[in-house]
């Protein structure tokens, strides 16, 4: 295919636009999400448990579970994903315990972080490193 000068310019502009897109999707970093969730309050290490496998063969479905006694809300983050936020759990008045499990996608080997907002307004966090053999974000 032979491009005229004008066509080439249009194609070039399109290409640079698609190159710029992934940078925009990286905007939601884990630090910013933590700041939004806590409102800048200090986060204590420990007090809650985040269970995740050490090695995940398939990043498309990694089982994780949280146990956050006394928490009202728990935010889960995957620090190495294109979008760091994974899920937010809110425990209602009839929650039998502060345990919940789900399955998440991990793009690569990274830290999974859980931050819990306690009933008294303080924050606690837990971290777990997961080695991912095959990433789970397509592409």
């Amino acid at each position, binding site marked *: 295919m032979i491009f005229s000068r004008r066509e080439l310019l249009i194609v070039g502009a399109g290409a640079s636009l698609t190159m710029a897109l992934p940078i925009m999707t990286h905007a939601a970093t884990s630090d910013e999400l933590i700041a939004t969730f806590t409102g800048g309050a200090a986060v204590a290490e420990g007090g809650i448990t985040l269970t995740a496998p050490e090695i995940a063969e398939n990043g498309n479905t990694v089982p994780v579970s949280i146990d956050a006694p006394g928490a009202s809300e728990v935010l889960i983050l995957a620090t190495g994903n294109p979008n760091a*936020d994974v899920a937010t759990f809110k425990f209602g008045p009839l929650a039998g315990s502060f345990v919940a*499990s789900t399955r998440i996608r991990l793009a690569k080997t990274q830290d999974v972080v859980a931050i819990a907002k306690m009933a008294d307004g303080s924050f606690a966090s837990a971290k777990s490193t997961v080695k991912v053999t095959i990433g789970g974000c397509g592409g």
Partner: protein
Amino acid sequence: MAEDVKPRVKVPKTAAAGEVITIKTLISHQMESGQRKGKDGNLIPRSIINRFTCDFNGENVIDVVLEPAISTNPYFEFDAKVPASGEFKFTWYDDDGSVYEDTKAITVN
């Protein structure tokens, strides 16, 4: 609307008053993350379930906000307190506005 969306929920049929029971839920949904590229090289638009709630007789048990990083066929396991006989109501909210619902009755003896 996503096709073939089928919620599956596992709740015990009976419980003692005040007992804490474990509930498992799964819903078939492709959870398109918006990160993948199709055969034509363009990004497939995001299409996920963005919220899941469970209520018992109108009182909230758990309320989850889902992001694209939740796996295909979202699975949740959690505990609920059963103060009396009643009905669990499970609701999933799709990006496209669809709402999927399921209910399970439980008897306290």
